[in-house]
């Protein structure tokens, strides 16, 4: 039988979410001949439909279903119902991502061993090593067409990169380039090369940027083994008396409640929705939520230590022209406690259009201090800081039972407080970013606070021991053998690197594991 599959077909693998994790896993399983149904909460758009307008695109793509926030992070004050800037559409946040594709460093898989005990930080070593993941990183890089791997040339630098590179070199940084990007610098895999459009976050209209929407899912569908059902919001994962997952209940595009049976269920709804779904799936047998015997579901929420530095020069930059994030300094990515913190960070080029600059430069700010900065927009250069933040048990996604979504289910509340290490690292990065720009003549630099989170990680973390986390080294939940987690919520710790490449590598590895276990009939 080929797709579409019957609701009562209990031989299918059901994947919740179609982003970097779910879309890759589903495609890879389909290529192996395994039947897959992906249930995606959002709509399916074609790349031609993407909009080169920040607010219109936000309305088209962003996850704006009700969520709440708490904690001392500034996002709670300025964007109380928008903890994360992520996508609700087929392709998930791989539609929105900027394309930076970096491997985690060896020590970042062993933070507890490397950093030691750090007060308030729930550090833990990953149950896998870099060496174990390297073949999967290589496979992911080839598949995604990552520049500076597999003989693929780097992208050309845009104006924003020119300023960034000159400043970085002037203050002594050595590892400066247009980076490793899953954006074609030359035609590859039936996709053309980057047209320097500049709206990477709004969905790439040329198809040069890898996303599961255009580069994976169509390949999976071509096998006849993959069915993607858009506008299908999963409410609950069901299980039988033996504690095995049996399927999911979802609301379809017509608002009807459906039940899809499954042999295996994989959750890939991003680090906010995935734990929410597990918690909302509580039953008599699993009163604290599915796969939550450790009590770690929803905990250790990480969002990367982020921030931006924008600087105004006395001459035009036009930073918004061209690839948004093709520019990186890696000199600060390593582990060096002389700087006053553990972990490291990357500096990456970034630009926002005028409408989003107004919203994010200094949320809530007004008056001449704000507007004179905006007046310098055309002369502005910008960079983003992305570093390792500390997992904390109290930073967590919980169910807010007093606020319900359109289906009547409790919404996710996202609580976050910076760890002192996060603050020290951010301050360091602000100083370095400012120094870079001042070295090449910036007349004014602006340390800009973190945006709503784009890198949501850690809420169903991998652990060797069941008591320390939610899933094992294959993303298989410790408690339910045919229930998997396939997104960034598996991350034991965050590393300093943009997470998508690691999510894809883990999904490819997990597909092999699932296929192997299925043929052995262990699940």
């Amino acid at each position, binding site marked *: 039988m080929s797709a579409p599959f019957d609701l009562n077909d209990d031989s299918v693998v059901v994947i919740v979410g179609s982003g970097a994790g779910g879309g890759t896993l589903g495609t890879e399983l389909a290529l192996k001949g395994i039947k897959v149904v992906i249930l995606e909460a959002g709509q399916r758009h074609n790349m031609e439909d*993407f909009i*080169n*307008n*920040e*607010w219109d695109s936000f309305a088209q793509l962003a996850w704006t279903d009700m969520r709440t926030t708490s904690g001392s992070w500034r996002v709670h004050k300025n964007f109380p119902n928008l903890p994360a800037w992520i996508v609700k559409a087929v392709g998930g946040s791989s539609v929105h991502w900027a394309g930076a594709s970096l491997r985690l460093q060896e020590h970042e898989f062993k933070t507890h061993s490397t950093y030691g005990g750090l007060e308030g930080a729930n550090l833990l070593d990953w149950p896998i090593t870099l060496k174990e993941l390297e073949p999967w990183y290589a496979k992911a890089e080839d598949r995604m067409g990552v520049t500076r791997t597999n003989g693929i040339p780097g992208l*050309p*630098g*845009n*104006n924003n990169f*020119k*300023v960034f590179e*000159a400043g970085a070199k002037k203050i002594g940084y050595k590892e400066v380039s247009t980076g490793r990007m899953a954006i074609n610098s030359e035609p590859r895999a039936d996709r053309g090369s*980057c*047209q*320097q*459009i*500049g*709206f990477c976050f709004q969905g790439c*209209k*040329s198809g040069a940027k890898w996303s599961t929407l255009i580069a994976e899912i169509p390949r999976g569908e071509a096998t006849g083994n993959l069915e993607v059902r858009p506008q299908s919001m999963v409410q609950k994962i069901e299980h039988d008396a033996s504690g095995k997952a049996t399927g999911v209940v979802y609301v379809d595009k017509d608002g009807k409640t459906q039940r899809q049976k499954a042999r295996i269920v994989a959750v890939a709804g991003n680090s906010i929705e995935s734990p929410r779904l597990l918690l909302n799936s509580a039953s008599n047998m699993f009163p604290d939520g599915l796969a939550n015997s450790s009590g770690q579901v929803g905990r250790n929420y990480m969002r990367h230590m982020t921030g931006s530095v924008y600087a105004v020069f006395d*001459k*035009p*930059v*036009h930073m*918004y*022209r*061209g690839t948004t994030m093709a520019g990186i300094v890696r000199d600060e990515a390593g582990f060096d406690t002389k700087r006053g913190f553990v972990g490291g960070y990357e500096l990456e080029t970034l630009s926002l*259009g*005028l*409408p989003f*600059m*107004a*919203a994010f430069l200094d949320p*809530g700010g*007004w*008056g*001449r201090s*704000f*507007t004179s900065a*905006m*007046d310098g*927009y*055309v002369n502005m250069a910008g960079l983003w800081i992305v570093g390792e933040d500390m997992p904390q048990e109290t930073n967590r996604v919980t169910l807010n039972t007093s606020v319900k979504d359109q289906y009547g289910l409790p919404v996710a509340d996202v609580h976050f407080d910076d760890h002192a290490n996060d603050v020290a690292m951010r301050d360091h990065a602000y100083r370095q970013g400012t120094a870079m720009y001042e070295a*090449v003549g910036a007349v004014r630099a602006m340390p800009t606070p973190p945006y709503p989170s784009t890198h949501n990680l850690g809420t169903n973390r991998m652990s060797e021991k069941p008591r320390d986390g939610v899933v094992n080294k294959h993303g298989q939940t410790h408690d339910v053998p045919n229930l998997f987690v396939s997104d960034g919520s598996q991350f034991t710790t965050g590393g300093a690197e943009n997470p998508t490449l690691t999510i894809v590598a883990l999904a490819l590895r997990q597909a092999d594991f699932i296929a192997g276990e299925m043929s052995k009939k262990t699940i």
Partner: protein
Amino acid sequence: MPTLIDRRGPSRRAVLGGIGAAGALMVSGAAVLNPREAWGLEVSALKPETMRTLIVMARDIYPHDRVPDRFYAIAVKPYEAAAAKDPATKTLIEDGVVTLDTLAKARHGTAYADLGWEDQRVAVLRQIEGGAFFEKVRSGLVVGLYNQEEVWPIFGYEGSSADKGGYIDRGFNDLAWL
């Protein structure tokens, strides 16, 4: 400018004759007029004086000397429709302006919009900063002002680019001053 009344033509001279010391924005009947920019904005749910104050307030919150009044007027114009639809919004805005004028008169004996210096008006705004009225107007402006495509060229932002072939042949790396 579809949302504003075009005041170009015969009426313009007559209006110009009415400019006083209070600035470029004046109230005539049920409309706010800007003779210099040749537009007018009619209101019915809100008082015209209130709309005039909102336009002044919009510029004081996000002052861009190169941005004409009409863009600030477009940014606050939706409050007219919102006030017509929702009595609570109408009350929030009308009462907010009354408070603003009361505070301005207490300091300087003059209504807020008639204070001569931006600094004086901003000092009054600082007194209501964080309140419901101020935050409604300020947060609305973030999108209402900066998301007007006609405003973008003033800031040097070029907007949509895929329809023009991206910047690959249009200067993505044309910076030469370094």
